[in-house]
């Protein structure tokens, strides 16, 4: 057997934030020329650990070795000097710059900046690994996948031979994911060592050579990928056996609850974000919305919630308690209503927006203050009722196992998963007629994700219309009764969640209706 050389060795790494131990005495090895998956639930310390490699955090204890040399990584520059580059979840690109300009931004080379030469070098890198970008292409002209590519090239341009990718597939279609994996393999062949952080087990199995697992800040162990399967990895991650099946009972008595017709909307700059969108959300059914990030999901949900200006079209709401066979009863059109009018019209609509802290929650307030977002207007008089929201906060705290020191602790300082629990918990507690969720499980660990899926199914069984905007196709196919696929603001297809295949949905996601399949 050949001797394994380590590209990176982290020895006894400990990192604390206040009284929270994010990483406890972790020993991690990345072999030269391998793809290592770093797997773990939310808050298990994956990103913290990688941030110490990339110079964003500095470990409290422990030592990092790069190619068996002890090193100090106190800044991202130190990381680059050691050949380590990290591709973050959120891109850090200047929109109006070209790919090359973004790539050389921040480089401290001697002499005059030679963009032409830099562009040449960018092109060489692209050709070598099969990247699909032009050096002179502006960022705002790029798809999400291309932007990610720029981030990767940026790291390679700086000469990194150790790459860390933090949940790179979260924003990609299945086809784009495949392409990324191909590129990762090309880089591996070229002798680079890669670490990929992901929640998606099938991707772990597909792309990596070895899997390292963290749980609650502890290093649990590592296994060669060929000896692992989804169930064994989940069990290691969670620490006990977890069922990976989503129960999908048949829809109960589905009746149209929201009928959306010819919905068209423009953003502030006059760009068409929704283009003649038509579909129906039924009661007692989970309606999935699939699409590449930025295909109009946000605008669609916000339009329904009364938060986005609608140019054309209708949104018709059928109240579950009204008999529409009586011609005297007319359904309500929600177009032109703001959230307060919708509420005043007696329509219970819940909405888990994509931007948790920017729209769904008040970061500086605690759980109680955030519960009040839905109830602050209730009751007579000038003063707010704090008692009921406090009770609700306590209930959610307990039922969803939110980790927080108190109901007054600002939600901004909770971890992403807990923030999400507060928001989803509140919205489900409204007993809504329509429940809309955008990426309800984004950032949640497997265990909590399944809790949320079950909660949504429970809502469906209570006869509520559930709209689920999701990014994980496997889950969409397992959870939803019907799936609306969006592409570029248009509906490119409405499919049956029970019979459609992942490839079909993936294809629809990239296919405009006009040139479309049917």
């Amino acid at each position, binding site marked *: 057997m050949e001797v394994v050389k380590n590209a990176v060795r982290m020895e006894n790494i400990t990192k604390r934030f206040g009284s929270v131990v994010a990483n406890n005495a972790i020993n991690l090895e990345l072999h030269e020329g391998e793809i290592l998956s770093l797997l773990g639930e939310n808050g298990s310390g994956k990103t913290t650990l990688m941030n110490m490699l990339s110079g964003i955090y500095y470990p409290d204890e422990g030592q990092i070795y790069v190619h068996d040399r002890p090193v100090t990584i106190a800044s991202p520059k130190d990381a680059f000097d050691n050949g380590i580059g990290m591709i973050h979840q959120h891109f850090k690109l200047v929109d109006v710059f070209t790919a090359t300009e973004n790539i050389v931004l921040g480089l401290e080379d001697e002499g005059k900046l030679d963009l032409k030469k830099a562009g040449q070098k960018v092109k060489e890198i692209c050709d070598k690994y099969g990247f699909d970008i032009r050096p002179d292409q502006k960022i705002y002209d790029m798809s999400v996948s291309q932007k990610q590519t720029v981030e990767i090239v940026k790291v390679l341009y700086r000469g990194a031979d150790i790459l860390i990718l933090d949940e790179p597939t979260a924003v990609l279609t299945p086809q784009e994911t495949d392409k990324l994996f191909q590129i990762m393999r090309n880089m591996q062949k070229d002798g680079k060592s890669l670490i990929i952080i992901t929640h998606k087990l099938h991707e772990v199995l597909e792309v990596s050579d070895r899997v390292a697992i963290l749980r609650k800040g502890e290093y649990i162990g590592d296994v060669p990928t060929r000896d692992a399967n989804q169930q064994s990895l989940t069990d290691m991650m969670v620490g006990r056996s977890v069922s990976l099946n989503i129960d999908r009972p048949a829809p109960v008595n589905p009746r149209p609850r929201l009928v959306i017709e010819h919905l068209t909307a423009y953003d502030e700059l006059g760009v068409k974000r929704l283009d003649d969108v038509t579909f129906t959300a039924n009661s007692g059914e989970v309606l999935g919305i699939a699409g590449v990030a930025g295909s109009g999901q946000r605008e669609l949900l916000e339009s329904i919630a009364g938060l986005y200006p609608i140019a054309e079209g209708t949104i018709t709401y059928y109240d579950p308690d009204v008999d529409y066979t009586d011609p005297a009863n007319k359904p309500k059109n929600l177009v032109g209503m703001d959230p307060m009018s919708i509420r005043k019209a007696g329509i219970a609509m819940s909405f888990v927006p994509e931007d948790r802290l*920017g*729209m769904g929650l*008040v970061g500086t307030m605690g759980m109680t*203050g955030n519960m009040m977002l839905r109830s602050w207007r209730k009751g007579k008089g000038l003063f707010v009722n704090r008692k009921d929201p406090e009770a609700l906060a306590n209930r959610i705290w307990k039922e969803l196992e939110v980790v927080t*020191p108190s109901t007054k602790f600002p939600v901004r300082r909770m971890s992403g998963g807990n923030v999400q629990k507060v928001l989803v918990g509140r919205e489900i507690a409204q007993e809504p007629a329509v429940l809309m969720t955008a990426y309800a499980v984004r950032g949640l660990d497997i265990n909590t994700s399944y809790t949320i899926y079950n909660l949504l199914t429970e809502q469906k069984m209570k006869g509520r219309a559930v709209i689920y905007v999701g990014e994980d196709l496997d889950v969409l196919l397992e959870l939803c009764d019907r799936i609306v696929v969006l592409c570029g603001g248009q509906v490119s297809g409405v499919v049956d969640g029970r019979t459609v295949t992942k490839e079909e949905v993936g294809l629809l996601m990239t296919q405009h209706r006009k040139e479309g399949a049917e």
Partner: protein
Amino acid sequence: MENKKVHEPLLRMAKRAEGLPGWKAWGIRLIAFFLSLVVSGLVIIAISGLNPAAVFATMAEGAVGTNKSMWVTIRDAMTLLCIAVGLAPAFKMRFWNIGAEGQILVGGIASAACMIYLKNLPTMLLLLVMVLASLAAGGIWGLFPGLFKARWNTNETLFTLMMNYLAIRLTAFFVSKWENPFGSNSVGIINSQTKAGWLPNLLSPGYNGDYGWNLIIVLVITVAMYFYMNKSKQGYEIAVIGDSVNTARYAGIRVNRAYVRTIVLSGAICGLAGFVAVSGASHSISIGTAGGRGFTAIIVAWLAQFNSVVMVIFSFLLVFLQKGAQAIASSYNLSKDVSEIITGIILFFLLGSEFFVNYTVHFRGKKVEKK
């Protein structure tokens, strides 16, 4: 150490994961305050060679040493507090009302106008009319930037700032209109014979003996504002908007309406501060009536993090420093700049202490204690 390849950075800052308990945070601020006294003491020695203890004693003596000086300190602190309390709701909503200066002036003009034109009304009625008029004037001064912000999303910082200059010019106009005696280019003391429209003493008959009414009026408003901000529905709306406008819209808060309402309230209370300054202190009006207090109050409001009850402490602190500084300037024949330096040092330490409230500093080699 030099030939060791691996070394930790000398200093590292880390954000405190959980907030400090209240008493610890206040402890840090208190330590900062004492440190600031030590440093300003050293500066005093370096500049003047005087005994800092004596200088501080003179400051205290000048600010609160006599009955009269104490009441003057209270009076000025109350005016400052009233403005800061007025700014609080606007600032909490992230509506940068830089226009307190102008709102004070128009409130003052309204009060002075009542004193001049309605001097024959019964005392209580006149005072009530003055209060309402100054509230209305300040409110209108806030209404314009509020409406423009709500309707066209204009920048309220520039708008309110420019409204100050408008108010100064307006004051200059009324000063020349009400000039008394003619040619003095000042309004002089209004109703100096009849005292009509003057806030009377609280504890004894007469005027200018104590400023008890200033104290009561402003403290009542301060407490009311505390409840408004923390317990009322509108106060909740303000807090949500201040954190995220989108969240406010999501929660069904009518943001534009809240903008206009809140800035009118803010302007109105600053207008009332104009009443307190005219009727309760100077009994006159000039372009110096606001005297920069509209800006100083911003510091008070921020230091207290918009908690109106905490503002009481900071208003007193700032006025105390100001009065004390004047005292040492006159009794030691020091330049007024020395007292400004001391005030600056104290503010520097107090503002700087907020860093240590929010962050911890780790030194090289020192192990972080385990829990």
